[in-house]
C-alpha cells in the first residue's frame, strides 16, 4: 500500500525529522558570541553591482574568488561571462572595500550587472541575483534596486527562493519616495544610512520596511583606478551589514535568514542588552 502524504509534510515524518542545534536565548547573545574573532573566512559573498577592481589596494585579503558578467545579446538572450572583469563605475569596488574592511577574509564574488553593455536593466539584475542563488552564495550585497513594477514579481520570487535556501540578501533601501525592489520585501535585510562612523555600529528600526541603519555618510571608499572617493548614500550602508552577516555566518554557518535578523536586532546599538552598558555594538 502506497502511503499518500502531502510533500510538505514529508520533512516532519518521524524517520525524516531532523534535530537542530539551539541558539542561545536572545538576551544572552553577545557580539563576541555572534562575530567576535571572525574574519568572515570562507563565507561566499556576492557583490551584485558594477564589478570589482580586484587589484585595488583598498581591498585587503584574498583575491576575488569568482566573476560573472551578465549581458544581453541584441536578440535578447542573456550571456554569463565568468572571465575576470574590471569595475565599470567604481560603485562595486566601493561596496567590496567596505565589506572587506569588516570581514577581511570573506570570499568575494563579483556579479557585474551594471556596465556599458549591462545598462542597468531589471532583467539583467534579476539574472545576476538568480546566478548568486544558484551558485552557492551565502550573502548577496545589493546596493542597487529597481523601481520598475514589471520586475516586482520576478524579484519577489527570487527573494523568496533566496530566503528558503538561506541566502542572505542585504539590500540598500532607496531614500526616494518610491518603492524599490527588492529592498521593500520582508525576506531581505534592508539597510539605510546613519551618519556615525563606527563600522560595526548599527541600529534596528522597529518600523520597517527599512530594518537596519548602518554607516553611510562621508565614507572614504576605494573607487576606480586605485583611487578613493568620499561618498554618502544608502548604497554604502548595506555593505556594512553584509560584512557583519559574513562574520556571523563564518562562526554560525547554519543560521537561517529569520535567525540572522533576530541576532542582528538583538545586537543593534539601540536595543537594550543586559551585557552592554552603552549603546554600542562594537567588539
Amino acid at each position, binding site marked *: 500500500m502506497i502511503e499518500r502524504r502531502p510533500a510538505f509534510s514529508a520533512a516532519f515524518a518521524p524517520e525524516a525529522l531532523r534535530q537542530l542545534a539551539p541558539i542561545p536565548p536572545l538576551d544572552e547573545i553577545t557580539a563576541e558570541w555572534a562575530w567576535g574573532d571572525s574574519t568572515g573566512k570562507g563565507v561566499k559573498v556576492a557583490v551584485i553591482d558594477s564589478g570589482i577592481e580586484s587589484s585595488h589596494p583598498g581591498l585587503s585579503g584574498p583575491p576575488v574568488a569568482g566573476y560573472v558578467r551578465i549581458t544581453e545579446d541584441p536578440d535578447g538572450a542573456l550571456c554569463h561571462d565568468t572571465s575576470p572583469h574590471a569595475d565599470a*563605475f*567604481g560603485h562595486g569596488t566601493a561596496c567590496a572595500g567596505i565589506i572587506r574592511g569588516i570581514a577581511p577574509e570573506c570570499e568575494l564574488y563579483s556579479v557585474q550587472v*551594471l556596465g556599458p553593455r549591462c545598462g542597468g536593466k531589471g532583467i539583467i539584475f534579476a539574472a545576476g541575483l538568480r546566478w548568486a542563488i544558484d551558485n552557492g552564495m551565502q550573502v548577496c550585497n545589493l546596493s542597487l*534596486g529597481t523601481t520598475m*513594477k514589471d520586475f516586482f514579481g520576478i524579484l519577489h520570487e527570487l527573494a523568496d527562493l533566496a530566503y528558503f535556501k538561506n541566502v542572505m540578501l542585504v539590500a540598500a533601501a532607496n*531614500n526616494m519616495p518610491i518603492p524599490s525592489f527588492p529592498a521593500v520585501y520582508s525576506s531581505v535585510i534592508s539597510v539605510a544610512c546613519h551618519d556615525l562612523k563606527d563600522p560595526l555600529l548599527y541600529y534596528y528600526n522597529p518600523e520597517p520596511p527599512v530594518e537596519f541603519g548602518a554607516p553611510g555618510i562621508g565614507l572614504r571608499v576605494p573607487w576606480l583606478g586605485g583611487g578613493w572617493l*568620499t*561618498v*554618502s*548614500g544608502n548604497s554604502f550602508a548595506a555593505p556594512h551589514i553584509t560584512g557583519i552577516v559574513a562574520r556571523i555566518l563564518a562562526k554560525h554557518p547554519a543560521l537561517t535568514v529569520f535567525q540572522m535578523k533576530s541576532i542582528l536586532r538583538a545586537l543593534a546599538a539601540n536595543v537594550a542588552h543586559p551585557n552592554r552598558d552603552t549603546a554600542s555594538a562594537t567588539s
Partner: protein
Amino acid sequence: MAAGGQSGGDTLSVARETIARQADEIARLRRDLADERFARELRDALTVAKTVGTVAAPVSHDRLLELIVGTATQVLSARGASLFVIDEETQELVFEVALGEHAVDVGKFRVPLGHGVAGLVAVTGHPLAVSDAESDLRQAAAISEQMGYRPQSLLCVPLFYGHRIIGVLELVDKEGAPAFAPKDMELLGLFAHLAGAAIEQSRTHQDLTVLVQQVVHSLGGNSKEERHELLRGARDFARHTQQTDASYNQALEIARLVHEIVAHGGETSRAVQTILRGFADYLQSQPHPAAMATGQ
C-alpha cells in the same frame, strides 16, 4: 446610313463629355468636402491645443527646467546645478540646463549612462553624494568635466516619473560646507520626485505642440499622402488632448464621485439621481452662460 452613323457618334460623344464633366464635378465636390472636413478637424484640434496650453503649461518646457534647477540650487545653497534627461533609445544622458557661476553654454552634450556620478545614479536609481577635496571630481561630475570646473562636492538624485527613471538632477558645491548633508539628500529627493512628474507632463505637452506646429507648417503640401498624414496627426492629437483637457478631467472627477455614491446602494443612488436631474433641468431653463456674459 453614313449621316445617321455620324449623328449617333455625335450624340455618344456629347454624352461622354457630359459624363466626364459630371465626374469632374463630383470629384471637385468630394475634394471640397474632404477639405472642409479636414479644416474642421484641424480647427477643433487647434482649439483644444490652445485650451490645454493655457491650462496645463503656464511656462515653456525650457523655462520649467530652469525653474527646477534654479529652485534646487537656491533651496540647498548650491553653487551650481545641472539637469539631465535619459534618452532611452541611445542609453545616454542628455544635458538640458545648468545654472551657477560656472555655468556656460555647453550645448546639448550627451554622456553614456553609467558615466560619472549622474550616470551611475541613472542606472542604480539611488541618490549619491560625493565630496572630496583631494581627488579630482571632474571625472565624477559630467557637467563639470565639460566646463573644466573642479567641484568640491556633488549631490545627485534620480528624477522619477511613475516608477521609471527619466533623468538626473545634479548639484555641485554646497555654500559654506565641505559636503552636502544627509538632510540635503532627503530634501532634494523629495523635490526631484515632484520635478520628475512636472518635467514628463511638460515634455508630453511640448511633443504635442511640436506636432501641431508641424501640421500647420505643412499645410502648403497638398499631395494626397501628405494630407492623409496630416489628418491622421491631427486626429491623434485631438484624441490625446481630450484626455488632458481640464474640462474633461473635471467631468471625470464628477463621474468618479457619482460612481462612489452609486456604490452606496439603491436609496442613495435614487436620491442623487433626483437631485442631479432637477439641477440639470434648472440649468437648461436658464439662459446660456455665454449669452449672459454678453448681456443677451
